[in-house]
Protein backbone atom coordinates (compact mmCIF):
# COMPACT_ATOMS: atom_id res chain seq x y z
CA UNK A 1 0.00 0.00 0.00
CA UNK A 2 1.43 3.36 -0.96
CA UNK A 3 0.42 6.59 0.65
CA UNK A 4 0.98 9.85 -1.13
CA UNK A 5 0.63 12.96 0.93
CA UNK A 6 -0.16 16.40 -0.38
CA UNK A 7 -0.11 19.63 1.58
CA UNK A 8 -3.32 21.55 2.04
CA UNK A 9 -1.89 25.03 1.93
CA UNK A 10 -4.40 26.95 4.02
CA UNK A 11 -4.33 24.73 7.10
CA UNK A 12 -0.88 23.22 6.65
CA UNK A 13 -2.42 19.79 7.15
CA UNK A 14 -1.68 16.62 5.27
CA UNK A 15 -4.22 14.30 3.83
CA UNK A 16 -3.53 10.69 3.10
CA UNK A 17 -5.06 9.76 -0.22
CA UNK A 18 -5.94 6.13 -0.56
CA UNK A 19 -7.53 4.23 -3.42
CA UNK A 20 -11.25 3.68 -2.91
CA UNK A 21 -12.09 0.69 -0.70
CA UNK A 22 -8.48 0.19 0.28
CA UNK A 23 -7.93 -1.04 3.80
CA UNK A 24 -6.50 1.54 6.16
CA UNK A 25 -3.50 -0.68 6.87
CA UNK A 26 -2.44 -4.09 5.56
CA UNK A 27 -3.56 -7.40 6.94
CA UNK A 28 -0.92 -9.01 9.10
CA UNK A 29 1.79 -10.95 7.36
CA UNK A 30 4.88 -12.78 8.55
CA UNK A 31 3.67 -12.93 12.12
CA UNK A 32 3.55 -9.16 12.49
CA UNK A 33 0.88 -7.14 14.21
CA UNK A 34 0.03 -3.49 13.59
CA UNK A 35 -0.47 -1.06 16.45
CA UNK A 36 -3.26 1.51 16.72
CA UNK A 37 -2.78 3.76 19.75
CA UNK A 38 -5.59 5.94 21.10
CA UNK A 39 -5.48 9.39 22.57
CA UNK A 40 -8.20 11.70 23.84
CA UNK A 41 -8.34 15.02 22.01
CA UNK A 42 -7.75 17.88 24.41
CA UNK A 43 -6.29 15.70 27.17
CA UNK A 44 -4.38 16.50 29.28
CA UNK A 45 -4.72 19.76 27.33
CA UNK A 46 -4.90 20.86 23.72
CA UNK A 47 -1.18 21.45 23.28
CA UNK A 48 -0.05 18.17 24.84
CA UNK A 49 -2.63 16.11 22.96
CA UNK A 50 -1.21 17.51 19.70
CA UNK A 51 2.37 16.86 20.81
CA UNK A 52 1.56 13.33 21.96
CA UNK A 53 -0.41 12.69 18.79
CA UNK A 54 2.49 13.77 16.58
CA UNK A 55 4.97 11.65 18.51
CA UNK A 56 2.74 8.56 18.48
CA UNK A 57 1.77 8.99 14.83
CA UNK A 58 5.42 9.29 13.91
CA UNK A 59 6.51 6.24 15.87
CA UNK A 60 5.60 3.71 13.18
CA UNK A 61 2.01 2.93 14.10
CA UNK A 62 -0.57 1.78 11.55
CA UNK A 63 -3.08 4.42 12.53
CA UNK A 64 -3.82 6.79 15.39
CA UNK A 65 -7.23 6.87 17.01
CA UNK A 66 -8.31 10.27 18.29
CA UNK A 67 -11.18 10.32 20.78
CA UNK A 68 -13.70 13.15 20.73
CA UNK A 69 -14.93 13.65 24.30
CA UNK A 70 -18.59 13.13 25.18
CA UNK A 71 -20.38 13.84 28.44
CA UNK A 72 -21.89 10.32 28.64
CA UNK A 73 -19.51 7.77 27.13
CA UNK A 74 -21.35 4.46 27.64
CA UNK A 75 -18.64 2.20 26.24
CA UNK A 76 -15.79 3.67 28.22
CA UNK A 77 -14.25 2.79 31.55
CA UNK A 78 -13.08 5.27 34.21
CA UNK A 79 -9.76 6.27 32.60
CA UNK A 80 -11.25 7.44 29.31
CA UNK A 81 -14.34 8.83 31.04
CA UNK A 82 -12.18 11.06 33.23
CA UNK A 83 -9.94 12.11 30.34
CA UNK A 84 -13.01 13.09 28.32
CA UNK A 85 -14.49 15.01 31.21
CA UNK A 86 -11.20 16.85 31.74
CA UNK A 87 -11.03 17.70 28.02
CA UNK A 88 -14.58 19.07 28.12
CA UNK A 89 -13.83 21.06 31.26
CA UNK A 90 -10.81 22.44 29.39
CA UNK A 91 -13.24 23.78 26.80
CA UNK A 92 -12.66 21.30 24.01
CA UNK A 93 -15.36 21.31 21.32
CA UNK A 94 -15.95 19.04 18.33
CA UNK A 95 -14.45 21.78 16.17
CA UNK A 96 -11.47 21.88 18.51
CA UNK A 97 -10.98 18.12 18.17
CA UNK A 98 -11.01 18.48 14.38
CA UNK A 99 -8.33 21.18 14.66
CA UNK A 100 -6.23 18.87 16.83
CA UNK A 101 -6.53 16.14 14.20
CA UNK A 102 -5.47 18.62 11.52
CA UNK A 103 -2.42 19.55 13.57
CA UNK A 104 -1.41 15.88 13.91
CA UNK A 105 -2.21 14.69 10.39
CA UNK A 106 0.31 13.61 7.78
CA UNK A 107 2.20 11.18 9.99
CA UNK A 108 -0.16 8.21 10.14
CA UNK A 109 -3.73 7.43 9.16
CA UNK A 110 -6.06 9.17 11.60
CA UNK A 111 -9.25 7.63 12.94
CA UNK A 112 -11.84 9.58 14.90
CA UNK A 113 -13.64 7.80 17.75
CA UNK A 114 -16.78 9.73 18.63
CA UNK A 115 -20.16 8.98 20.15
CA UNK A 116 -23.02 9.82 17.84
CA UNK A 117 -24.56 12.81 19.62
CA UNK A 118 -21.68 15.27 19.14
CA UNK A 119 -21.67 14.31 15.45
CA UNK A 120 -25.43 14.87 15.16
CA UNK A 121 -25.13 18.22 16.94
CA UNK A 122 -22.25 19.36 14.71
CA UNK A 123 -24.19 18.18 11.67
CA UNK A 124 -23.15 14.87 10.07
CA UNK A 125 -22.43 16.42 6.63
CA UNK A 126 -20.35 19.23 8.06
CA UNK A 127 -18.59 16.85 10.45
CA UNK A 128 -17.67 14.45 7.66
CA UNK A 129 -16.41 17.24 5.41
CA UNK A 130 -14.40 18.98 8.14
CA UNK A 131 -12.91 15.75 9.51
CA UNK A 132 -11.92 14.70 6.02
CA UNK A 133 -10.36 18.10 5.30
CA UNK A 134 -8.41 17.78 8.54
CA UNK A 135 -6.85 14.56 7.27
CA UNK A 136 -9.01 12.07 9.15
CA UNK A 137 -9.45 8.84 7.19
CA UNK A 138 -11.97 6.87 9.20
CA UNK A 139 -14.60 7.08 11.88
CA UNK A 140 -15.54 4.75 14.74
CA UNK A 141 -18.86 5.45 16.50
CA UNK A 142 -19.21 3.06 19.44
CA UNK A 143 -22.93 3.72 19.96
CA UNK A 144 -23.88 3.43 16.30
CA UNK A 145 -24.57 -0.20 15.43
CA UNK A 146 -24.95 -1.06 11.72
CA UNK A 147 -28.77 -0.75 11.77
CA UNK A 148 -28.61 2.84 12.95
CA UNK A 149 -25.85 3.78 10.50
CA UNK A 150 -27.76 3.17 7.30
CA UNK A 151 -28.62 6.83 6.74
CA UNK A 152 -25.28 8.19 7.96
CA UNK A 153 -22.82 5.87 6.26
CA UNK A 154 -23.32 7.38 2.77
CA UNK A 155 -22.73 10.84 4.27
CA UNK A 156 -19.36 9.73 5.67
CA UNK A 157 -18.56 7.84 2.50
CA UNK A 158 -19.25 10.88 0.33
CA UNK A 159 -16.65 12.83 2.28
CA UNK A 160 -14.14 10.01 1.84
CA UNK A 161 -14.36 8.77 5.43
CA UNK A 162 -14.26 5.07 6.14
CA UNK A 163 -16.79 3.82 8.69
CA UNK A 164 -15.37 1.19 11.02
CA UNK A 165 -18.00 -0.92 12.78
CA UNK A 166 -17.45 -2.98 15.89
CA UNK A 167 -17.95 -6.69 16.44
CA UNK A 168 -18.54 -7.85 20.02
CA UNK A 169 -18.32 -11.26 21.70
CA UNK A 170 -22.14 -11.29 21.84
CA UNK A 171 -22.50 -10.72 18.07
CA UNK A 172 -24.09 -13.62 16.22
CA UNK A 173 -22.43 -14.97 13.05
CA UNK A 174 -25.18 -13.31 11.06
CA UNK A 175 -24.39 -9.95 12.66
CA UNK A 176 -20.64 -10.43 12.20
CA UNK A 177 -21.30 -10.97 8.50
CA UNK A 178 -23.37 -7.81 8.33
CA UNK A 179 -20.85 -5.74 10.31
CA UNK A 180 -17.98 -6.90 8.12
CA UNK A 181 -19.96 -6.08 4.98
CA UNK A 182 -20.77 -2.59 6.28
CA UNK A 183 -17.25 -1.74 7.46
CA UNK A 184 -14.65 0.02 5.38
CA UNK A 185 -11.02 0.67 6.35
CA UNK A 186 -10.88 -2.09 8.94
CA UNK A 187 -13.12 -4.04 11.31
CA UNK A 188 -12.88 -3.41 15.05
CA UNK A 189 -13.28 -6.49 17.22
CA UNK A 190 -14.17 -5.74 20.83
CA UNK A 191 -12.31 -8.43 22.78
CA UNK A 192 -14.62 -8.66 25.78
CA UNK A 193 -18.14 -8.02 27.02
CA UNK A 194 -17.49 -4.81 28.84
CA UNK A 195 -16.10 -1.32 28.66
CA UNK A 196 -12.69 0.08 27.82
CA UNK A 197 -9.95 -0.26 30.43
CA UNK A 198 -6.80 -2.13 31.35
CA UNK A 199 -7.09 -5.85 32.21
CA UNK A 200 -4.40 -8.29 33.28
CA UNK A 201 -5.27 -11.00 30.77
CA UNK A 202 -6.94 -11.30 27.41
CA UNK A 203 -10.32 -13.01 27.68
CA UNK A 204 -10.70 -16.72 26.99
CA UNK A 205 -12.24 -17.48 23.62
CA UNK A 206 -10.77 -14.40 21.94
CA UNK A 207 -8.89 -16.38 19.29
CA UNK A 208 -12.11 -18.07 18.23
CA UNK A 209 -13.95 -14.76 18.04
CA UNK A 210 -11.18 -13.20 15.94
CA UNK A 211 -11.23 -16.27 13.70
CA UNK A 212 -14.98 -15.87 13.15
CA UNK A 213 -14.46 -12.25 12.15
CA UNK A 214 -11.43 -12.75 9.91
CA UNK A 215 -13.20 -15.56 8.06
CA UNK A 216 -15.88 -13.07 7.00
CA UNK A 217 -13.84 -10.15 5.70
CA UNK A 218 -10.86 -9.28 3.56
CA UNK A 219 -10.32 -6.17 5.66
CA UNK A 220 -7.78 -6.07 8.47
CA UNK A 221 -9.25 -6.82 11.89
CA UNK A 222 -8.16 -4.76 14.89
CA UNK A 223 -8.65 -6.10 18.41
CA UNK A 224 -9.42 -3.55 21.08
CA UNK A 225 -10.47 -3.19 24.77
CA UNK A 226 -8.27 -4.47 27.58
CA UNK A 227 -5.01 -4.58 25.60
CA UNK A 228 -2.00 -2.93 27.22
CA UNK A 229 0.97 -5.28 27.53
CA UNK A 230 3.63 -6.77 25.24
CA UNK A 231 2.40 -10.26 26.18
CA UNK A 232 -1.08 -9.31 24.96
CA UNK A 233 0.48 -8.26 21.65
CA UNK A 234 2.37 -11.55 21.44
CA UNK A 235 -0.82 -13.51 22.12
CA UNK A 236 -2.73 -11.67 19.40
CA UNK A 237 -0.20 -12.41 16.68
CA UNK A 238 -1.59 -14.71 14.06
CA UNK A 239 -5.15 -14.02 15.26
CA UNK A 240 -5.61 -10.27 14.71
CA UNK A 241 -4.11 -7.80 12.25
CA UNK A 242 -3.81 -4.93 14.68
CA UNK A 243 -4.18 -4.10 18.35
CA UNK A 244 -5.85 -0.94 19.64
CA UNK A 245 -4.41 0.33 22.92
CA UNK A 246 -6.27 3.09 24.74
CA UNK A 247 -6.68 3.38 28.50
CA UNK A 248 -3.09 2.39 29.36
CA UNK A 249 -1.81 5.18 27.11
CA UNK A 250 -4.31 7.75 28.34
CA UNK A 251 -3.30 6.95 31.93
CA UNK A 252 0.43 7.33 31.19
CA UNK A 253 2.19 10.64 31.81
CA UNK A 254 4.04 10.04 28.57
CA UNK A 255 2.45 7.46 26.25
CA UNK A 256 5.44 7.16 23.90
CA UNK A 257 7.61 4.70 25.89
CA UNK A 258 4.71 2.23 26.17
CA UNK A 259 3.93 2.62 22.46
CA UNK A 260 7.58 1.91 21.64
CA UNK A 261 7.59 -1.12 23.91
CA UNK A 262 4.40 -2.44 22.28
CA UNK A 263 5.74 -1.71 18.79
CA UNK A 264 8.82 -3.75 19.61
CA UNK A 265 6.52 -6.62 20.59
CA UNK A 266 4.61 -6.21 17.32
CA UNK A 267 7.65 -7.68 15.59
Amino acid at each position, binding site marked *: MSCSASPAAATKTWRLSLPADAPLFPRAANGRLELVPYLMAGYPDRHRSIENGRRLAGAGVAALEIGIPFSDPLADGPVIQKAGQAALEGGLTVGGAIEIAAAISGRAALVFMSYI*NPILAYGPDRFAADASSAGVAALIVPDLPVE*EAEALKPVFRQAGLDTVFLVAP*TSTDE*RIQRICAASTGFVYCVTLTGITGVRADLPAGLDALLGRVRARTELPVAAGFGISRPEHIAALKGHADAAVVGSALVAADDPLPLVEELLAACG
Partner: protein
Amino acid sequence: MPLRYGVYGGRYVPETLVSPLDELEAAWRSARADPAFQAELELQRRDFVGRPTPLYFAERLSAHFGQARIHLKREDLCHTGAHKLNNALGQALLARRMGKQRIIAETGAGQHGVATATVGARFGFECTVYMGTEDMRRQAVNVERMRMLGAEVREVTAGTRTLKDATSEAIRDWVTNVRTTHYIIGSAVGPHPYPEMVRDLQRVIGDEARAQYLEAEGRLPEVVVACVGGGSNAIGIFTAFLDDEDVRLLGVEAGGAGLESGRHAASLVAGRPGVLHGSLSYLLQDADGQVLPTHSISAGLDYPGVGPEHSLLRDLERAEYLAVTDREALEAFQLCTRLEGILPALEPAHALAAAARLEGRVLLCLSGRGDKDLATVLAG
Protein backbone atom coordinates in the same frame (compact mmCIF):
# COMPACT_ATOMS: atom_id res chain seq x y z
CA MET B 1 -34.88 -1.64 11.84
CA PRO B 2 -35.58 -1.28 15.55
CA LEU B 3 -39.00 0.07 16.43
CA ARG B 4 -39.20 3.82 16.40
CA TYR B 5 -41.72 6.43 17.32
CA GLY B 6 -41.54 8.54 14.18
CA VAL B 7 -37.85 9.37 13.99
CA TYR B 8 -37.41 8.89 17.75
CA GLY B 9 -36.21 5.89 19.72
CA GLY B 10 -33.93 3.35 18.08
CA ARG B 11 -30.94 1.55 19.52
CA TYR B 12 -27.86 3.71 19.84
CA VAL B 13 -25.89 1.25 21.95
CA PRO B 14 -22.55 -0.56 21.87
CA GLU B 15 -22.64 -3.62 19.61
CA THR B 16 -22.29 -5.83 22.71
CA LEU B 17 -25.89 -4.99 23.65
CA VAL B 18 -27.56 -5.43 20.26
CA SER B 19 -28.02 -9.21 20.35
CA PRO B 20 -29.11 -9.13 24.01
CA LEU B 21 -31.68 -6.44 23.11
CA ASP B 22 -32.92 -8.71 20.30
CA GLU B 23 -33.26 -11.52 22.84
CA LEU B 24 -35.03 -9.24 25.29
CA GLU B 25 -37.45 -8.09 22.63
CA ALA B 26 -38.26 -11.66 21.61
CA ALA B 27 -38.69 -12.69 25.26
CA TRP B 28 -40.97 -9.75 25.94
CA ARG B 29 -43.16 -10.41 22.90
CA SER B 30 -43.44 -14.05 23.87
CA ALA B 31 -44.25 -13.25 27.52
CA ARG B 32 -46.76 -10.57 26.60
CA ALA B 33 -48.67 -13.06 24.46
CA ASP B 34 -48.47 -15.87 27.03
CA PRO B 35 -51.67 -16.24 29.11
CA ALA B 36 -49.72 -17.90 31.95
CA PHE B 37 -47.34 -14.93 32.18
CA GLN B 38 -50.23 -12.49 32.09
CA ALA B 39 -52.08 -14.45 34.78
CA GLU B 40 -49.00 -14.37 37.05
CA LEU B 41 -48.55 -10.65 36.42
CA GLU B 42 -52.21 -10.04 37.19
CA LEU B 43 -52.03 -12.04 40.42
CA GLN B 44 -48.90 -10.25 41.63
CA ARG B 45 -50.35 -6.89 40.71
CA ARG B 46 -53.38 -7.61 42.85
CA ASP B 47 -51.78 -9.28 45.85
CA PHE B 48 -48.29 -7.77 45.95
CA VAL B 49 -48.65 -4.30 44.42
CA GLY B 50 -52.21 -3.70 45.65
CA ARG B 51 -53.95 -3.05 42.32
CA PRO B 52 -56.29 -1.75 41.17
CA THR B 53 -55.41 1.55 42.81
CA PRO B 54 -58.39 3.79 43.53
CA LEU B 55 -59.68 6.71 41.55
CA TYR B 56 -60.34 9.50 44.03
CA PHE B 57 -62.36 12.69 43.60
CA ALA B 58 -60.30 15.55 45.05
CA GLU B 59 -63.30 17.55 46.14
CA ARG B 60 -61.68 20.24 48.24
CA LEU B 61 -58.73 20.76 45.91
CA SER B 62 -61.19 21.13 43.01
CA ALA B 63 -63.20 23.68 44.96
CA HIS B 64 -60.03 25.57 45.87
CA PHE B 65 -58.79 25.79 42.28
CA GLY B 66 -62.33 26.64 41.22
CA GLN B 67 -62.38 25.82 37.51
CA ALA B 68 -61.75 22.08 37.40
CA ARG B 69 -63.28 18.86 38.69
CA ILE B 70 -60.17 16.83 39.55
CA HIS B 71 -59.90 13.08 40.01
CA LEU B 72 -56.65 11.53 41.21
CA LYS B 73 -55.43 8.13 40.09
CA ARG B 74 -53.88 6.94 43.34
CA GLU B 75 -50.58 5.34 42.29
CA ASP B 76 -49.24 6.63 45.60
CA LEU B 77 -51.12 3.72 47.16
CA CYS B 78 -49.07 1.11 45.30
CA HIS B 79 -46.77 -1.00 47.47
CA THR B 80 -43.46 0.89 47.92
CA GLY B 81 -45.29 4.16 47.33
CA ALA B 82 -45.16 4.83 43.61
CA HIS B 83 -46.04 3.55 40.15
CA LYS B 84 -42.46 2.33 39.73
CA LEU B 85 -43.33 -1.12 41.08
CA ASN B 86 -45.68 -1.79 38.12
CA ASN B 87 -42.64 -1.81 35.86
CA ALA B 88 -40.15 -3.47 38.21
CA LEU B 89 -42.59 -6.32 38.90
CA GLY B 90 -43.23 -7.05 35.22
CA GLN B 91 -39.55 -6.92 34.33
CA ALA B 92 -38.64 -9.16 37.29
CA LEU B 93 -41.11 -11.77 36.07
CA LEU B 94 -39.57 -11.46 32.62
CA ALA B 95 -36.02 -11.76 34.01
CA ARG B 96 -37.04 -14.95 35.84
CA ARG B 97 -38.57 -16.30 32.63
CA MET B 98 -35.32 -15.50 30.78
CA GLY B 99 -33.29 -17.41 33.40
CA LYS B 100 -31.31 -14.37 34.60
CA GLN B 101 -29.87 -14.58 38.11
CA ARG B 102 -29.15 -10.93 38.65
CA ILE B 103 -31.04 -7.68 38.21
CA ILE B 104 -29.61 -4.18 38.14
CA ALA B 105 -31.17 -0.74 38.10
CA GLU B 106 -30.40 2.95 38.25
CA THR B 107 -32.13 5.28 40.62
CA GLY B 108 -32.38 8.99 41.27
CA ALA B 109 -34.65 9.66 44.23
CA GLY B 110 -34.54 6.00 45.09
CA GLN B 111 -38.13 5.03 44.23
CA HIS B 112 -37.18 2.86 41.27
CA GLY B 113 -34.22 1.50 43.21
CA VAL B 114 -36.53 0.56 46.08
CA ALA B 115 -39.02 -1.02 43.67
CA THR B 116 -36.22 -3.06 42.06
CA ALA B 117 -34.73 -4.07 45.42
CA THR B 118 -38.26 -5.08 46.47
CA VAL B 119 -38.78 -7.44 43.53
CA GLY B 120 -35.21 -8.64 44.03
CA ALA B 121 -36.18 -9.71 47.55
CA ARG B 122 -39.57 -11.06 46.47
CA PHE B 123 -38.20 -13.26 43.67
CA GLY B 124 -34.72 -14.01 45.05
CA PHE B 125 -32.52 -12.14 42.59
CA GLU B 126 -29.08 -10.83 43.28
CA CYS B 127 -29.67 -7.09 42.97
CA THR B 128 -27.40 -4.10 42.35
CA VAL B 129 -28.64 -0.52 42.24
CA TYR B 130 -26.57 2.38 40.88
CA MET B 131 -27.07 5.75 42.52
CA GLY B 132 -25.14 9.00 42.27
CA THR B 133 -23.32 10.03 45.44
CA GLU B 134 -25.20 13.34 45.39
CA ASP B 135 -28.54 11.48 45.37
CA MET B 136 -27.33 9.01 48.04
CA ARG B 137 -26.68 11.96 50.29
CA ARG B 138 -30.09 13.54 49.56
CA GLN B 139 -32.01 10.25 49.86
CA ALA B 140 -30.18 8.44 52.65
CA VAL B 141 -33.33 6.69 53.94
CA ASN B 142 -34.03 5.07 50.58
CA VAL B 143 -30.42 3.87 50.45
CA GLU B 144 -30.99 2.11 53.78
CA ARG B 145 -34.30 0.67 52.54
CA MET B 146 -32.62 -0.82 49.48
CA ARG B 147 -29.81 -2.32 51.58
CA MET B 148 -32.32 -3.78 54.02
CA LEU B 149 -34.07 -5.40 51.05
CA GLY B 150 -30.80 -7.12 50.20
CA ALA B 151 -29.64 -4.92 47.35
CA GLU B 152 -26.12 -3.68 46.91
CA VAL B 153 -26.17 0.09 46.34
CA ARG B 154 -23.18 1.16 44.27
CA GLU B 155 -22.23 4.79 44.40
CA VAL B 156 -21.60 6.64 41.16
CA THR B 157 -19.03 9.39 41.36
CA ALA B 158 -18.84 10.22 37.65
CA GLY B 159 -20.16 13.35 35.99
CA THR B 160 -22.93 15.17 37.88
CA ARG B 161 -23.35 12.24 40.31
CA THR B 162 -27.11 12.07 39.73
CA LEU B 163 -29.64 10.00 37.76
CA LYS B 164 -28.05 10.52 34.34
CA ASP B 165 -24.72 9.19 35.54
CA ALA B 166 -26.31 6.35 37.51
CA THR B 167 -28.06 5.30 34.29
CA SER B 168 -24.80 5.38 32.34
CA GLU B 169 -23.13 3.26 35.01
CA ALA B 170 -25.98 0.73 35.05
CA ILE B 171 -25.66 0.40 31.26
CA ARG B 172 -21.89 -0.17 31.65
CA ASP B 173 -22.60 -2.92 34.18
CA TRP B 174 -25.09 -4.45 31.74
CA VAL B 175 -22.55 -4.33 28.90
CA THR B 176 -20.15 -6.23 31.16
CA ASN B 177 -22.54 -8.79 32.68
CA VAL B 178 -25.18 -9.07 30.00
CA ARG B 179 -25.18 -12.86 29.88
CA THR B 180 -26.36 -13.28 33.48
CA THR B 181 -28.00 -9.96 34.20
CA HIS B 182 -31.24 -8.22 33.33
CA TYR B 183 -31.24 -4.43 33.45
CA ILE B 184 -34.53 -3.10 34.85
CA ILE B 185 -34.57 0.40 33.43
CA GLY B 186 -36.81 2.67 35.50
CA SER B 187 -38.61 4.73 32.91
CA ALA B 188 -39.91 4.57 29.34
CA VAL B 189 -36.47 5.53 28.04
CA GLY B 190 -33.43 3.66 26.72
CA PRO B 191 -32.92 1.54 23.62
CA HIS B 192 -35.73 -0.41 22.00
CA PRO B 193 -37.53 -2.48 23.35
CA TYR B 194 -37.35 -0.70 26.73
CA PRO B 195 -39.64 2.26 25.98
CA GLU B 196 -42.28 -0.08 24.59
CA MET B 197 -41.91 -2.64 27.38
CA VAL B 198 -42.11 -0.05 30.16
CA ARG B 199 -45.16 1.53 28.51
CA ASP B 200 -46.84 -1.88 28.24
CA LEU B 201 -46.23 -2.46 31.95
CA GLN B 202 -47.37 1.03 33.01
CA ARG B 203 -50.45 1.23 30.82
CA VAL B 204 -52.33 -0.59 33.59
CA ILE B 205 -52.57 2.88 35.17
CA GLY B 206 -54.50 4.29 32.24
CA ASP B 207 -56.54 1.18 31.54
CA GLU B 208 -57.78 1.11 35.12
CA ALA B 209 -58.28 4.87 35.33
CA ARG B 210 -60.27 5.09 32.09
CA ALA B 211 -62.69 2.38 33.22
CA GLN B 212 -62.92 3.82 36.73
CA TYR B 213 -63.54 7.31 35.39
CA LEU B 214 -66.31 6.13 33.06
CA GLU B 215 -67.84 4.26 35.97
CA ALA B 216 -67.67 7.26 38.29
CA GLU B 217 -68.51 10.11 35.91
CA GLY B 218 -70.35 8.38 33.08
CA ARG B 219 -68.09 9.96 30.46
CA LEU B 220 -64.43 10.56 29.72
CA PRO B 221 -62.30 13.30 31.27
CA GLU B 222 -61.55 16.38 29.20
CA VAL B 223 -57.89 16.52 30.25
CA VAL B 224 -55.49 13.83 31.46
CA VAL B 225 -52.47 15.28 33.22
CA ALA B 226 -49.26 13.67 34.49
CA CYS B 227 -45.73 14.70 35.34
CA VAL B 228 -42.92 13.82 32.94
CA GLY B 229 -39.33 13.04 33.86
CA GLY B 230 -38.47 10.03 31.72
CA GLY B 231 -42.23 9.86 31.34
CA SER B 232 -43.30 6.38 32.43
CA ASN B 233 -46.33 7.29 34.55
CA ALA B 234 -47.42 9.77 31.89
CA ILE B 235 -47.15 7.30 29.01
CA GLY B 236 -48.84 4.73 31.23
CA ILE B 237 -51.93 6.87 31.71
CA PHE B 238 -51.86 8.56 28.25
CA THR B 239 -51.79 5.28 26.32
CA ALA B 240 -55.34 4.35 27.31
CA PHE B 241 -56.62 7.69 25.97
CA LEU B 242 -54.59 8.04 22.75
CA ASP B 243 -57.55 7.04 20.60
CA ASP B 244 -59.97 9.30 22.48
CA GLU B 245 -59.30 12.28 20.26
CA ASP B 246 -61.30 14.73 22.36
CA VAL B 247 -59.28 14.00 25.49
CA ARG B 248 -56.41 16.47 25.94
CA LEU B 249 -53.18 14.92 27.16
CA LEU B 250 -50.98 17.20 29.21
CA GLY B 251 -47.46 16.35 30.35
CA VAL B 252 -45.79 18.49 33.01
CA GLU B 253 -42.02 18.81 33.11
CA ALA B 254 -39.73 20.18 35.78
CA GLY B 255 -39.24 23.91 35.28
CA GLY B 256 -36.77 24.04 38.19
CA ALA B 257 -35.73 27.60 38.96
CA GLY B 258 -37.49 28.76 35.78
CA LEU B 259 -36.79 28.04 32.11
CA GLU B 260 -35.01 31.38 31.67
CA SER B 261 -32.57 30.47 34.48
CA GLY B 262 -31.27 27.46 32.56
CA ARG B 263 -31.65 25.44 35.78
CA HIS B 264 -34.44 23.05 34.90
CA ALA B 265 -35.14 19.59 33.44
CA ALA B 266 -37.72 20.43 30.77
CA SER B 267 -36.46 18.32 27.84
CA LEU B 268 -39.62 18.50 25.71
CA VAL B 269 -40.26 22.19 26.34
CA ALA B 270 -36.70 23.47 26.05
CA GLY B 271 -34.55 20.72 24.49
CA ARG B 272 -33.86 19.53 20.97
CA PRO B 273 -33.53 16.00 19.60
CA GLY B 274 -30.37 14.10 20.49
CA VAL B 275 -29.11 10.71 21.58
CA LEU B 276 -28.71 9.76 25.23
CA HIS B 277 -28.83 6.31 26.84
CA GLY B 278 -29.57 4.48 23.62
CA SER B 279 -32.39 6.41 22.03
CA LEU B 280 -33.06 9.54 20.02
CA SER B 281 -35.41 11.89 21.82
CA TYR B 282 -35.69 15.46 23.04
CA LEU B 283 -32.61 16.19 25.10
CA LEU B 284 -31.13 19.06 27.07
CA GLN B 285 -27.77 19.54 25.41
CA ASP B 286 -25.38 22.31 24.52
CA ALA B 287 -24.57 23.44 20.97
CA ASP B 288 -21.84 20.80 20.80
CA GLY B 289 -24.07 17.86 21.69
CA GLN B 290 -22.81 17.55 25.27
CA VAL B 291 -25.60 16.67 27.69
CA LEU B 292 -26.38 19.53 30.07
CA PRO B 293 -26.64 19.31 33.84
CA THR B 294 -30.24 19.60 35.01
CA HIS B 295 -32.00 20.86 38.09
CA SER B 296 -35.30 20.05 39.74
CA ILE B 297 -36.45 20.02 43.34
CA SER B 298 -37.85 16.62 42.43
CA ALA B 299 -35.09 14.05 41.96
CA GLY B 300 -37.40 11.85 39.91
CA LEU B 301 -37.81 14.52 37.24
CA ASP B 302 -34.16 15.59 37.33
CA TYR B 303 -33.14 13.97 34.03
CA PRO B 304 -32.00 15.61 30.77
CA GLY B 305 -33.75 13.15 28.44
CA VAL B 306 -37.29 11.87 28.00
CA GLY B 307 -38.96 8.79 26.54
CA PRO B 308 -39.06 8.72 22.72
CA GLU B 309 -42.82 8.21 22.48
CA HIS B 310 -43.36 11.54 24.25
CA SER B 311 -41.15 13.19 21.63
CA LEU B 312 -43.43 11.88 18.91
CA LEU B 313 -46.61 12.86 20.79
CA ARG B 314 -45.14 16.35 21.17
CA ASP B 315 -44.32 16.69 17.46
CA LEU B 316 -47.74 15.34 16.48
CA GLU B 317 -49.31 17.74 18.99
CA ARG B 318 -51.33 14.80 20.33
CA ALA B 319 -49.99 15.66 23.77
CA GLU B 320 -49.01 19.08 25.11
CA TYR B 321 -46.10 19.65 27.42
CA LEU B 322 -45.42 22.51 29.76
CA ALA B 323 -43.07 23.19 32.65
CA VAL B 324 -43.83 24.01 36.27
CA THR B 325 -41.26 25.55 38.63
CA ASP B 326 -39.94 24.19 41.92
CA ARG B 327 -41.85 26.90 43.75
CA GLU B 328 -45.18 26.10 42.06
CA ALA B 329 -44.70 22.39 42.77
CA LEU B 330 -43.99 23.08 46.44
CA GLU B 331 -47.16 25.18 46.72
CA ALA B 332 -49.19 22.39 45.13
CA PHE B 333 -47.60 19.88 47.52
CA GLN B 334 -48.76 21.96 50.50
CA LEU B 335 -52.25 22.47 49.08
CA CYS B 336 -52.86 18.82 48.34
CA THR B 337 -51.59 17.84 51.78
CA ARG B 338 -53.71 20.39 53.63
CA LEU B 339 -56.90 20.12 51.57
CA GLU B 340 -56.99 16.41 50.77
CA GLY B 341 -54.92 14.77 53.49
CA ILE B 342 -52.69 13.28 50.79
CA LEU B 343 -48.96 13.93 50.71
CA PRO B 344 -48.06 13.81 47.04
CA ALA B 345 -44.52 13.16 45.86
CA LEU B 346 -42.84 16.26 44.47
CA GLU B 347 -43.02 14.72 40.98
CA PRO B 348 -46.84 14.61 40.71
CA ALA B 349 -46.95 17.89 42.67
CA HIS B 350 -45.82 19.38 39.33
CA ALA B 351 -48.92 17.90 37.69
CA LEU B 352 -51.08 19.27 40.54
CA ALA B 353 -49.62 22.74 40.02
CA ALA B 354 -50.54 22.56 36.33
CA ALA B 355 -54.08 21.40 37.21
CA ALA B 356 -54.61 24.64 39.13
CA ARG B 357 -54.83 26.41 35.75
CA LEU B 358 -57.15 23.87 34.10
CA GLU B 359 -60.88 23.91 33.57
CA GLY B 360 -63.36 21.06 33.26
CA ARG B 361 -63.05 17.37 34.00
CA VAL B 362 -59.45 16.54 34.89
CA LEU B 363 -57.89 13.15 35.52
CA LEU B 364 -54.49 13.45 37.19
CA CYS B 365 -51.96 10.70 37.78
CA LEU B 366 -50.79 10.97 41.38
CA SER B 367 -47.75 8.85 40.61
CA GLY B 368 -46.30 8.55 44.11
CA ARG B 369 -46.47 9.55 47.73
CA GLY B 370 -44.41 12.31 49.25
CA ASP B 371 -42.98 10.84 52.44
CA LYS B 372 -39.58 10.59 50.73
CA ASP B 373 -39.70 14.34 50.06
CA LEU B 374 -40.35 15.65 53.56
CA ALA B 375 -36.76 16.73 54.15
CA THR B 376 -36.68 18.56 50.82
CA VAL B 377 -39.99 20.28 51.50
CA LEU B 378 -38.94 21.30 55.01
CA ALA B 379 -35.67 22.69 53.63
CA GLY B 380 -37.52 24.53 50.84
